[in-house]
């Protein structure tokens, strides 16, 4: 960037307190010199679970919705604690928390990310680039508030799999081609926007879903920094048409959870063990 150029205004969108992966992203953005401004939502989504439930039923059917809720109650919450503990170890949460507390990054608080206040705050900040660090699906009024683009890291290979929990789904369904991460521009769909970067970690015996998420995230954050620098220079990404219609998966149900745990969270899965074969 030349001296007379105005520095980019990068705004990071967060929902709730940042976890280890989110802190890693924020610290890397700050270390790359983007001085991100943070817009932090106090909660994940608009209050009122009925609409959310209706949406799940419409998408997954009644049985699917019941399975999803049961899966979350029986396994999801407990697994999330385990996952956060593991990610905390891998990302070095103690150091990241210290950094976050002393970073002094300017933070704006909004009720939730799709609240009208968010768009107002983004206009006031004159955001050049938005980075969705955490939170749910963004509404158009939010992601279109950025002058250049709104970016997201999808933890999965977007040309093959869309939606949440893509890496564990790859383990469960034996699809190594789903495991990876994608940096893409946010559009109306879920993980359907133009792809700026896509990569996959190596799969090896003993790798768990958390290991793969961690390695994919570390690599994706480095790629995100490169993408932001390129976008700042006026780079226009070319959207390549996906060769196949990507699959879509949402939160897991009871059976998916049971299979994931039976596969030792990936350590005993075919997708990881098979990588040691065929030589």
């Amino acid at each position, binding site marked *: 960037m030349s001296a007379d150029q105005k520095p980019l205004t990068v705004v990071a969108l967060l929902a709730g307190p940042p976890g280890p992966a989110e802190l890693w992203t924020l610290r890397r953005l700050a270390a790359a010199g983007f001085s991100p401004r943070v817009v932090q939502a106090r909660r994940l989504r608009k209050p009122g679970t009925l609409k959310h439930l209706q949406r799940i039923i419409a998408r997954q059917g009644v049985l699917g919705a019941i399975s999803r809720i049961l899966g979350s109650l029986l396994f999801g919450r407990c697994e999330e604690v385990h996952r956060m503990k593991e990610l905390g170890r891998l990302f070095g949460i*103690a*150091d990241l928390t210290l950094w976050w507390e002393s970073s002094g990054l300017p933070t704006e608080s909004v009720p939730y990310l799709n609240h009208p206040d968010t768009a107002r705050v983004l206009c006031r900040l004159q955001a050049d680039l938005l980075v969705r660090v955490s939170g749910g699906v963004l509404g158009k009024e939010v992601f279109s508030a950025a002058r250049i683009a709104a970016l997201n890291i999808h933890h999965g290979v977007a040309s093959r799999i869309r939606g949440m929990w893509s890496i564990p789904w790859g383990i469960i369904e034996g699809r190594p081609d789903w495991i990876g991460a994608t940096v893409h521009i946010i559009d109306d769909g879920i993980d359907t926007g133009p792809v700026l970067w896509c990569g996959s970690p*190596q799969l090896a015996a*003993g790798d768990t879903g958390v290991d793969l998420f961690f*390695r994919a995230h*570390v690599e994706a954050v480095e790629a995100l920094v490169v993408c932001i620098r390129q976008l700042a220079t006026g780079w226009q990404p070319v959207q390549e048409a996906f060769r196949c219609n990507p699959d879509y998966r949402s939160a897991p149900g009871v059976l998916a959870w049971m299979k994931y745990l039976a596969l030792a969270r990936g350590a005993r899965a075919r997708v990881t*063990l098979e990588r040691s*074969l*065929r*030589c």
Partner: protein
Amino acid sequence: MLTGLASAVLGLVRRARSCGVIINEHTLTQGETRRHVEALGRHFEFIHPHELPSRLPNASGRPFCLLTFDDGKKSNATQSAPELYRMGIPALFFVTTGFLDNGEPLWFDRYAALIETLGYVPRGLERETLKRLPFGVLAGRLEQFSRGHSLISRSDSEDVAPMSWDEVRRLNQLGFAIGAHGVRHAILTRETREVAVAEIVESMRRVSAETGAVCRAFAFPNGNYTAELAQHAVKAGARVVVTTEPAWVKSYDSLCRLPRIQLFGSNSASRIMAKIALAAAEGVLANPDGTGRSYFFVRRMSRRFKS
């Protein structure tokens, strides 16, 4: 009693098309080297790595033993090699090329010094956690925790310092084989494909350049591997690629993924034999690469795949 048990196991594994064992050592004193060789020599015939391809399809006769030493520590050249030479035992030394070039202690020796200095293991600095990180992140974390502490240095110890390239050449001239073991001892499956392949290719190139002979062997640092990386090692010239799966070498094993049984200097003769006997039953010993007993499934799948 233990000798009887070992003999019985040897008979069984021979019937199960077992060819022999590859032993993975790190640092041994002269006395420990002698003790290990004497214990192994009772049941095995020591071979040179170039004999491996001809011994693999042949499970008849006395089982073989190939001795390997990892990392390239100075004590390999000053303690083990002279004793092995005196006893006429061949061996294969895997050297970490960047370690020999810059002389800086390997990451796990720096880690040991850091924990000794701190007196406790901070959260996020557990050895098992560090082994799951890419090398850049791992090195950064060690650096961050080392800041503000003067570490207890062991870098003058022959079990921490590297041998010199002159010593490597001398070992080669004495008839020992030299293999590559990565540039930085990074755990290659944690790296991106490009970095992992570059580590393999560069370390093999460096060994070839320093010894003047084509490097024909590669050992995965910490034992973690994928078939894709093993194939890259073969493409780079390796004829023998070894892991740390604690099992006997079987006649159907691929030369690019050979198991090795890890021994330590403190192991007594009876413990060595017990460990080797247990390794005959795959899935009993845990793989020191951190993947536990999953190698059992890999080897079973591999057997099915081959047949």
